[in-house]
């Protein structure tokens, strides 16, 4: 028998037989229902509850137009979270995404300087840059063996410094309208009003990343690399390459988020400030566990939507800005505690 070497709070070695079998083949009807509920990540229920509360205080919120507007402003964070979750599942952190978002906005503004003609080559360039940043994060983490917390913290500083060094302290130039449209405008739908591009992009990115994580060979290797690196390596998974790829995905999603955010707000020096923590919080709300092996794209997006809708709700309740932070903090801790609790209870 193997001993339970591992941190305190690793699952106890013995799990009562009844519980063990209950989960896989739930015989009683009640058990099956509970299992179905369990299958739905709880964050979706929370999100539904919050949206219900908002709608109760402000029915217009759930009308098509306002709700789409809500989704549009959630899009950047949601995309960011959908990318971050890859890194988290692989057992790492990416603190550099916030700085990367800022960099995208500033660089795009200065390079294009409001000229619509530049947009078509600008976006691929930015994506390439994002991939490069992710690659560097990954290599520093996996090859130089620098903990990703430090590696990406360093990247955060380097990006933040470099970009403003280059642009002379404040953003220069401006964003062309055809660059901004992705984050700002949309396609007119008769009756529904405007369907924002941002929502479509979020949908596309979300689905793409979901397929990649849950239905591709690579995705399964991400889970394996985070869940049990040694077993993964002995099954032929190139753990270092997989983790690096996760960072690249996070970098790419940060660029998309930056394009959406820049489009939404226009050029500002603050774009993306603090987004790294928000994204990680969203992923954790989505039930992911820092340390790796657990999490999903859908739940992370839901986590991001929840963060934003909670902001709106508290705003709607007329709750002072200061207390919104406090409540957000409690919610994050609560979510993480609940996830940890579930993890241990299920063995």
């Amino acid at each position, binding site marked *: *028998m*193997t*001993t339970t*070497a591992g941190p305190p709070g690793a*699952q106890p*070695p*013995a*799990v009562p*037989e009844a519980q*063990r*079998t209950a*989960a*896989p*083949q739930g015989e009683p009807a009640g058990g099956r229902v509970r299992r179905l509920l369990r299958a739905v990540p709880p964050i979706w229920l929370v999100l539904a509850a919050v949206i219900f509360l908002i709608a109760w205080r402000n029915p217009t919120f759930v009308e098509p137009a306002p709700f789409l507007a809500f989704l549009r402003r959630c899009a950047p964070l949601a995309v960011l979270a959908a990318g971050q979750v890859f890194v988290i599942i692989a057992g790492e952190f990416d603190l550099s995404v916030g700085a990367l978002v800022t960099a995208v906005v500033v660089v795009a503004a200065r390079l294009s300087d409001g000229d619509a003609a530049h947009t078509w080559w600008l976006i691929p360039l930015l994506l390439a840059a994002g991939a490069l940043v992710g690659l560097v994060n990954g290599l520093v983490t996996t090859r130089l063996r620098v903990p990703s917390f430090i590696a990406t913290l360093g990247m955060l500083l380097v990006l933040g410094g470099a970009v403003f060094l280059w642009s002379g302290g404040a953003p220069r130039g401006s964003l062309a309208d055809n660059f901004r449209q992705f984050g700002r405008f949309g396609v007119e739908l008769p009756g529904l009003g405007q369907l924002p591009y941002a929502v479509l992009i979020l949908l596309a990115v979300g689905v793409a990343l979901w397929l990649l994580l849950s239905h591709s*060979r690579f995705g*399964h*290797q991400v*889970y*394996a690399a985070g*869940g*049990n690196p*040694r*077993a*993964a*390596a*002995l*099954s*032929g*998974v*190139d753990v270092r390459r997989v983790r690096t790829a996760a960072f690249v995905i996070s970098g790419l999603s940060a660029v998309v988020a930056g394009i959406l955010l820049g489009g939404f707000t226009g050029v500002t020096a603050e774009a993306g400030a603090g987004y790294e923590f928000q994204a990680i919080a969203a992923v954790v709300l989505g039930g992911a566990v820092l340390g790796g*092996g*657990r999490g999903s794209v859908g739940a992370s997006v839901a986590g991001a939507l929840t963060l934003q809708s909670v902001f709106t709700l508290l705003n709607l309740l007329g709750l002072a800005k200061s207390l919104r932070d406090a409540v957000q903090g409690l919610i994050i801790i609560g979510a993480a505690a609940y996830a940890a609790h579930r993890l241990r209870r299920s*063995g």
Partner: protein
Amino acid sequence: MTADPRPPDPVVLGMHGISKRFFGVTVLDDVRLECRAGEIHAVMGENGAGKSTLMKILVGVHQPDAGRIELNGAPVRFHHPRQALAAGVSIVHQELNLLPQRTVAENIFLGREPRRRFGVDRAAMDQAATRLLAALGAEDVISPRSLVGRLPVARQQLVEIAKALSFDPRVLVLDEPTAALSPHEVAALFDRIRRLRADGLTVLYISHRLREVFDLTDRITVLKDGRRVDTVETSEVDTRRLVHLMVGRELDHYYPPRAAPERIGPVRLAVRSAGAGLLHDVDLDLRAGEIVGLAGLAGSGRTELARLLFGATRMTAGRLTIDGRASRLRSPRHAIRRGIGLLTEDRKSEGLVLQRSVRDNTLLAARSLGRGAARRVALADLLGRVRLRGGADREVRYLSGGNQQKVVLARWLATGARVLIFDEPTRGIDVGAKASIHELMRELADAGAAILMISSELPEVIGMADRIVVLRQGTVAGELPAGATEAEIMLLATGEPDRAGAAAGASREGGTA
């Protein structure tokens, strides 16, 4: 079942009706163990017989599902190792429990550092540590101030023992303490243990090494498949009887028929004078359709060899050929591409991603191979071939040991591996499941796979292997034909000088016969 009528010395430690299940596998079933004051009591049995679990229950690492423990007649319940230590029961675990980045003294006295008025009395601590080490005859090779991480394993082992003694226990459990010790160190240890016995200490001694058991112990309790077979006076048994008690199982376990010689094909995997770490000059051939049993004592390098053949550790010397073509295995990934598969000894920490589903774990390797294995592998077919019933979406940690092993096996079927290395394939698996694993292995062999089976269970080796290779101290000590006796294997493995030659001779005859 001879429970000694009236013990000459009072019973210090009594364990009664101890039962324990892990994930549905019965590991201990109504086990009784009684130790007298001042005796050295051996607990023997194959790996997986439940020795270590029993000891972990004794020292409060695990709690029993049933049964009671008595110290000096008073019932005790240990929920935490701390309580056991306080009650005077300490243990030297099989696997090292030391902090590599702390000094020897710090490790020995962790949790009970001696204090002066202000803080820890480092000087006193170092002296005490030195005394303990001296008692083990190790004071000149181990400084209390050196970092444990910088000591060789053998010396780390000694530190572990010193740590256990530092609690000045009344019952001391030694779980395979000599696995990594040199003869000199073993001798010193035994002296110490005998002196402890003289002081009235009760020692529970767990080992595979028959010779040590006979040298050292007063009584022997034998476990098998989680049950207590018998408790005997060491003076009243001989090797044959003891081995029979431990492993005599030909009757109650069916092994599939061996391969007919004509079905044994060409050499699939071969190494010549291979070396890495403690391995040296290893020659080995694995043929298609053949199951080679690899035997040897703990620490003889069996697992190391497995990892070497799988590219998990780089070969520093020698050649390796696959289907005749020379090859350097750079990584497991590389080995898998070459059609090799490894079923690790420790499924939980090295075999499975516990919180993922049966499907994901089964397809893990195939998926990681990329285009090469992109061809659709039908999951249902795979699970059928390993006879794993139930949904493929269960998280594997909910499976029994046997089914978990089947998942790992299915993984290698999915990659179409032609060379399979089983490291302790049936460890911690209950008897029923064992049989089906064994049948699967044979089927694979018949289907043309070359199989290397590492096992500490001699009957398993004897029952399964078409050829038995015995390792000793990092190299091949000899090779035995199918149906060699346990004694022959043991002799090669322990390499007892007087009879080693005879055994080798015996094996050669057997080989030609």
